[in-house]
């Protein structure tokens, strides 16, 4: 009986001990502002409350063992407070979390088009829906400021840099020879179909220490992840056909695309001012395999193989009745493997390897040139996330280039080089607060040909000046081997060097963005010569500068279903390099570039229509008949292009496009005979597009159970 009493007493005691107590307090940010909607509770229990507009909370609890108060709020670090008792009110300060939503992003020199990227000024689809770009990645980027229209090449000329100063990277791995070959003075296209990529980061300067061997620009493409649905696509186009299929498996996916391009029927219909014997023909295969190796691991394999050829007759400059046969062929293979994994909460690893083999053959009359390139790149990098305020990336890479050239002109001459670049890089990103960020990087490179070491710093910073605006600055030193023609003859040719200084202001708010960027780029150690075929005339002391301002405005809000952007670039550039007898503006540079891109979805005709207007001011050219070097000026360039994508049904789309609708006679420059004629002058002729307009028609069919999928995003 006594025992029973003891138990009853114990029960009674436990009841009184569990009597209710009141926990109260206030939650503020570090800067003292009250935080609303914060979840405050005793760990492991249901007992808690939500803070009010003043940051106050109060709740009752019967718990007596739990003194651990958990405080959680969106955008702040979770806090745990050990209470001394359940009586006195508590003051809690939360530290702001730096995350993708609130952190300032360094935007100097960078145009980012990634899914979900907050700082996006360009969306992935833009690459393929912009009129006049023929779904070519560089074509679309040429509507952005910082690029110069150089219509006869199709390449990206960035801020007074040559086309070769822009390098392309897929999943961090270097791509050699990224453009398909083309006839002389006609634009080449990128070999890589834009539909493969989920994100494009186009840098016009000041980029990360991870990237080297590019003086002006790095085009960083990130391929898509695992495909979720099975689909098959067929395209019938005036320039060829393609078929692709995507298969999705449990933790992996495969995508393959085969393409056959032949311009014979098109050239038969649309008159060309080149006399084609065999219009460009290309077989192209793309294969991608992705595998999720663990919850956080991803392996990507990608292959591109292609074979192309063309044959035409080129008029002699002096004697137009003489036709010189021109043949161009190319066999190309690129294999790319990359792997990413999180080792633990803080450490991440990425590694990759790429191999490119490209064999080019070009013949003019009895002279021919054959080039064989083996390119190799491997990289290993680690990421260390110390906290949300500090992260460090470090890695090493090897870039090998083995290139041979045979010149057959009566006799055979062989030139070659075997270059191995080893580099290490490290970069730290530091957030002083969510409004102020710094990036400090360093890249060390060793070149086996010159046996020299190079050390290149890269610095950048960004500061949020308001809720929607920010300024960023960047500085960096960049190096690149000179044009391969120079390296062939002088294997020890020094790397060329550029220094970038960039200041950027960006404002964006709900579908509208504005950015203005000023830059100063200084070139040093440029290759100079009086005769490119005579290495004794080489010197590597050429200098140059490119200064300018880029302005960009984009608005997808003001007009319903309409998106437009306007770009303007001003460029002031001069360099003493190649065979220039002093410091001159090179022939690819135009002082003013301007473009407007408009896209509109018109519901009533179920069509997306787009238009692009591009303008470039005159470009210099050298007329050997003039005393002054580079004294010629081409007329200004204008182009107005349109496209329309009509949704015939959910999964059938008809696409049409016309470039240079007004058939404006654009002149890219002039070329001259190498020797004077009987009259003592150098005969010359303008370099013009092969036809005033380019017209494209295509039908795109998607076969998939998933009715939400069609090819519109790819057009």
């Amino acid at each position, binding site marked *: 009986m006594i025992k029973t009493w003891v138990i009853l007493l114990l029960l009674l005691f436990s009841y009184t001990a569990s009597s209710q107590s009141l926990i109260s307090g206030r939650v503020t940010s570090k800067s003292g502002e009250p935080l609303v909607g914060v979840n405050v509770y005793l760990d492991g229990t*249901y007992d808690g409350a939500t803070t009010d507009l003043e940051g106050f909370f109060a709740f009752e609890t019967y718990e007596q063992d739990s003194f651990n108060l958990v405080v959680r709020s969106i955008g702040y670090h979770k806090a745990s407070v050990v209470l001394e008792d359940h009586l006195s009110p508590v003051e809690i300060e939360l530290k702001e979390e730096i995350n993708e939503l609130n952190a300032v992003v360094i935007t100097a020199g960078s145009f980012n088009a990634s899914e979900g990227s907050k700082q996006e000024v360009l969306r992935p689809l833009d690459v393929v829906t912009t009129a006049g770009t023929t779904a070519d990645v560089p074509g679309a980027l040429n509507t952005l400021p910082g690029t110069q229209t150089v219509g006869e090449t199709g390449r990206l000329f960035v801020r007074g840099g040559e086309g070769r100063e822009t390098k392309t990277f897929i999943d961090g791995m270097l791509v050699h020879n990224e453009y398909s070959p083309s006839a002389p003075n006609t634009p080449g296209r990128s070999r890589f179909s834009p539909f493969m990529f989920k994100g494009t980061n186009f840098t016009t300067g000041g980029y990360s220490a991870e990237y080297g061997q590019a003086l002006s620009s790095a085009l960083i493409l990130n391929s898509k992840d695992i495909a979720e649905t099975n689909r098959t696509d067929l395209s019938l186009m005036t320039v060829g056909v393609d078929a692709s299929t995507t298969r999705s498996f449990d933790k992996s996916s495969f995508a393959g695309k085969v393409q056959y391009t032949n311009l014979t029927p098109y050239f038969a219909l649309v008159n060309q001012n080149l006399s084609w014997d065999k219009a460009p023909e290309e077989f192209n295969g793309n294969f991608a395999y992705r595998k999720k190796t663990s919850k956080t691991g991803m392996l990507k394999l990608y292959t591109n193989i292609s074979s192309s050829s063309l044959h035409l007759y080129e008029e002699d400059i002096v004697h137009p009745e003489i036709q010189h046969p021109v043949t161009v062929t190319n066999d190309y293979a690129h294999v790319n493997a990359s792997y990413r994994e999180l080792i633990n909460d803080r450490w991440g690893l990425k590694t990759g390897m790429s191999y490119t083999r490209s064999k080019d053959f070009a013949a003019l009359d009895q002279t021919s040139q054959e080039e064989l390139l083996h390119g190799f790149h491997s990289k290993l990098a680690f990421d260390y996330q110390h906290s949300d305020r500090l992260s460090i990336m470090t890695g090493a890479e090897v870039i090998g280039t083995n290139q041979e050239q045979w010149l057959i002109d009566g006799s055979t001459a062989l030139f070659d080089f075997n270059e191995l670049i080893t580099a290490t890089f490290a970069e730290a990103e530091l957030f002083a607060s969510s409004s102020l960020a710094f990036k400090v990087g360093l890249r060390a490179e060793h070149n086996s040909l010159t046996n020299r070491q190079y050390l290149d710093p890269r610095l950048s910073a960004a500061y949020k000046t308001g809720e929607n605006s920010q300024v960023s600055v960047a500085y960096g030193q960049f190096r690149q081997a000179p044009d391969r023609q120079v390296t062939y003859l002088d294997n020890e040719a020094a790397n060329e060097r550029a220094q970038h200084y960039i200041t950027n202001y960006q404002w964006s708010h709900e579908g509208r963005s504005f950015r203005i960027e000023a830059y100063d780029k200084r070139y040093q150690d440029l290759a100079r010569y009086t005769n490119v075929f005579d290495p004794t005339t080489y010197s590597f002391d050429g200098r140059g500068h490119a200064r300018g301002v880029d302005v960009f405005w984009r608005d997808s809000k003001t007009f319903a279903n309409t998106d437009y952007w306007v770009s303007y670039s001003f460029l002031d550039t001069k360099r003493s390099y190649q065979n220039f007898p002093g410091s001159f503006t090179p022939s690819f540079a135009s002082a003013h570039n301007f473009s407007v891109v408009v896209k509109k979805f018109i519901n009533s005709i179920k069509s997306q229509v787009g238009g692009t207007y591009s303008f470039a001011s005159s470009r210099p050219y050298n007329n050997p008949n003039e005393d002054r070097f580079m004294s010629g000026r081409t007329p200004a360039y204008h182009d107005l292009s349109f496209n329309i994508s009509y949704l015939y049904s959910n999964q059938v789309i008809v696409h049409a496009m016309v470039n240079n609708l007004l058939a404006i006679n654009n002149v890219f420059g002039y070329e001259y005979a190498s020797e004077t004629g009987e009259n003592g002058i150098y005969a010359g002729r303008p370099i013009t597009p092969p036809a005033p307009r380019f017209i494209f028609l295509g039908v795109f069919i998607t076969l998939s159970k998933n009715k939400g999928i069609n090819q519109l995003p790819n057009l």
Partner: protein
Amino acid sequence: MKKNLIIIIFSVVSTGLMANGAFERVMGESIPAIFSSDNPENLQQIINKLDRVGAAETDRWEPHYYVAFGYLRMSSMYDNLADKDKYLDLALEAVAKGEEVLPDDAEFETLRGYIQMMKLNADPANRGMQYSGLVFGSFQKAIALSPNNPRAHFLLGQMQYGTAQFMGGGNAEACATMSKSLELFAQQTNPENPFAPSWGKESAERSHQQICKDSE
């Protein structure tokens, strides 16, 4: 002695019942509030309460489901895209948390599709093409996991209707899916788990009426 034992057993059982009862009580009062709350402050309080339950009961998926649903509703109380996205992202996070407890579940997959659908609706001009595949993919996956899930059919029908409105081509398909969802809602028996999702019947009836009227 026997008595003592009985008392001890009784007290143990009663505290056990109390703990269990708390889950039932809090869920029972919070779930209807998630659906009826009409302002962000109040809704955040209910979400926080469910979030506390989810943090304490590590083997229950239901709190996460309704937290996600709460944030989905919260997103519709704001007009600007950044706020909408913030809450829709929180909803997706809650879905992922719930799926850690209950993987490969049709209800979570349906909810994910619903959230993506709201993301699409927030900015159709820019997101239409990218998100419509995601949304259809989620509903189809949910139906594959549970062929008789009425909510997956209801939302699939909504999405088909929206697509048909946009592309033309009539509402026959959407109407058929809606009719099927009504059938499935009618068959929906009281589940063993009183907190399992059961919403959607009335909305489906309204949508069915509108879509099938339009399709004639």
